[in-house]
């Protein structure tokens, strides 16, 4: 216990000394998130300073081993670091699909050479990754994907189309699911492969979302040549890797709503609408809805904490991230419905400077994707029914 307490006070002191004040403010604009990558730029000097200091500690990926650029912290230490960062509302120094999705899959399934090649670049924010899973005819039924990879010497030649590929137009590399055996049953002929988005034959086309932004693309592969050595795990066993990665993706998405800073939603609403003489939010029905929401939000935070502790104790159910993904995303949609309600007509502005270019409305619309991306709520419930509750025919 003494060591743990010592660690906590060291972390607290270090964060206090090293996290710039600007990096303790709630994130309001897209540029507030630093994604890394070959062509990246920093939105501000504090963002750069914060990122570099954290990177040098290995704390962009605190729980990864040191030899791969991580901080080498154990589960308890990682939890403490997160708690202390949350306590001062410190922003994440680096957000990326490499950290939340590919990294865990490489740590489990990658060869030593693949780990040494890719993990340190993820930790240092040098390479930005995108995810090539979904296709026009393979969404919820992902395993029916058609993009083909045909062997040619020691390479594969890849042809096909992906869709909804988030930030494909900014990404440096892609982790991609391809069909390597079309005769096998649909789950048994898929491989998980990595390649450079600059490879000849790769092209992207942005898609505009209802939020008016275009964070994702159609991605086309026209005779793209990729070494077979870039397959992670065994050829034709890519579905195992894909599913494992999805568990991490879902855990990440389930926590997306928690970054709103430490101010209770009810106070935010009271700031916008006003309070009565007793200090109560001056809209009693909304106040009740917000309190109900905050109960569920607190409950989700407890469940996420417990899931981490169960995992450390080796007692976690592997499908539990689907449960959290379902609940967390539905909750985040509710949060933004309540925020829109609290904002009233002011939250409807789309372009003015006063509204930070319609930040509230755009954020609200963006959250509608939460229960679709990474597997829909209906699919999550199906997974819980089948894998956890063991219901028949699910």
């Amino acid at each position, binding site marked *: 216990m003494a060591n743990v307490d010592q660690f906590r006070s060291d972390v607290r002191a270090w964060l206090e000394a090293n996290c710039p004040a600007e990096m303790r403010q709630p994130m309001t604009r897209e540029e507030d998130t630093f994604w890394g990558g070959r062509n990246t730029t920093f939105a501000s000097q504090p963002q750069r300073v914060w990122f570099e200091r954290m990177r040098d500690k290995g704390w962009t990926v605190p729980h990864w081993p040191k030899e791969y650029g991580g901080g080498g912290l154990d589960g308890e230490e990682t939890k403490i670091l997160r708690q202390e960062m949350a306590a001062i509302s410190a922003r994440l120094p680096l957000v990326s699909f490499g950290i939340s999705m590919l990294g865990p899959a490489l740590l489990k399934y990658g060869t030593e050479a693949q780990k040494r090649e890719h993990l340190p670049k993820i930790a240092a924010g040098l390479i930005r990754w995108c995810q090539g899973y979904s296709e026009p005819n393979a969404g919820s039924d992902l395993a029916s994907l058609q993009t083909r990879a045909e062997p040619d010497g020691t390479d594969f030649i890849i042809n096909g189309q992906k869709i909804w590929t988030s930030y494909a137009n900014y990404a440096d590399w892609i982790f991609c699911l391809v069909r390597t055996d079309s005769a096998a049953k649909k789950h048994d002929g898929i491989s998980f492969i990595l390649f450079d988005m600059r490879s000849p034959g790769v092209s992207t086309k942005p898609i505009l979302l209802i939020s008016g932004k275009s964070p994702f693309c159609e991605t086309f592969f026209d005779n793209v040549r990729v070494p077979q050595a870039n397959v992670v795990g065994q050829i034709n066993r890519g579905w195992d890797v894909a599913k494992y990665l999805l568990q991490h993706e879902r855990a990440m998405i389930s926590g997306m709503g928690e970054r709103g800073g430490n101010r*209770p939603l*009810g*106070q935010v*609403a*009271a700031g916008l609408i006003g*309070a009565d003489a007793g*200090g*109560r*939010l001056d809209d009693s029905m909304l*106040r*009740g809805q*917000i*309190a*109900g929401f*905050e*109960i*569920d939000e*607190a*409950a*989700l935070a*407890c*469940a996420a*904490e*417990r899931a981490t*502790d*169960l995992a*450390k*104790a080796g*007692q976690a159910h592997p499908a*539990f991230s689907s*449960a959290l993904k*379902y*609940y967390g995303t539905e909750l985040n949609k509710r949060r933004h419905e309540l925020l829109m309600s609290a904002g009233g007509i002011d939250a409807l502005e789309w372009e003015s400077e006063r509204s930070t270019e319609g930040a509230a409305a755009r954020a609200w619309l963006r959250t509608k994707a939460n229960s679709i991306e990474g597997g829909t709520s*209906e699919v*999550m*419930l*199906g997974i*819980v*029914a089948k894998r*956890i*509750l*063991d*219901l*028949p*025919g*699910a």
Partner: protein
Amino acid sequence: MALILNEEQSMLRDSARGLIGSKAPIAHLRKLRDERDATGFSRELWRAFAEMGFPGLLVAEEHGGSGLGAVEAGVIMEEIGRTLMPSPFLSTAVLAATALTRGGSAAQRQEYLPRLAGGDLIAALAVDEGAKHRPLHTAMKAVRSGNGFRLSGTKGFVVDGHVADLLVVAARTAGAPGEAAGLTLFVVDPRAKGVEIERTVMVDAHNAARITFHDAEVSGVLGEVDHGAGLLEGVLNVGRGAVAAEMLGAAEEAFTRTVGYLKERKQFGKLIGEFQALQHRAAHLYVEIELTRATVLKALQLLDAGAAEAGAAVAVAKAKAGTVGTLAVQEAVQMHGGMGMTDQFDVGLFMKRMRVCQELLGDANFHADQLARLKSY
């Protein structure tokens, strides 16, 4: 601290489950109900509890208890919830033990706690007066008289009130209903003159009483006169955490039985668990119950740590247990079809108990409001 039970707590759970599962399955509740048992619980089982040290779980070792905490009490309550066992554990081992430990003088602690811990003293907490739990709205008057006070007024929903050997009563020595200042906790002998006790048979066949005080003379005060609100709130919070744990146990059991039924009942030539409409509802409920489990344990741990956030965590846990417990028993009855509506089938008993637990020490709305107040909006 990890948000999971440690090894000793898991062992406690296993031994409680062993005892309760074998000695007090749901048939035990049915028997007490159908025979209109005058006590409303089994004294023999309470003795078996005493042999395991359960009544004194929260009592300090110097008074014959084991000096454990809210987490351990919650572990027992969860098991009690699973079989709907009527037991004075909440009234005596949780509420009264906490009130006496925190508010009692050295002499009071010495007088009551060893007997309580040994299973020889049943005690009940009398707070509610109206239809809803509103502790600050306590109106019952305690007027100074000689060296003591005289109580007049009526308390309802006093759990185990008709079998109690000791009552802990909240009354107003000053101030107006709605104010925290002016509340005082008293210890009262239920056999004292002017104390009239009526057993109120409730929908769930568990114990409760309505107690009327007709100028009853009392001398024992717990804590400070006029300044009992903080003490009361602390006691209630431990009780709320414990009731939330009971509701969790009942919700889990109702859910387990429901999922079992989905895998057994056939219609349209299929198991009803193959219908996606039911699968998704069951999956949703599973997630809600897991969230509830985490919030209950969190609240109990924070209570034990004496943390400042314990009050908010208790509000979250009791509110969540209220809404999720209600959903669990509603889905249980619905998914059992006509069977769920029969008295012979157990799921209805879970529905009845859950309704009572929802009101006990504040329902989900009460606690949502508490949370909003705590967070200043």
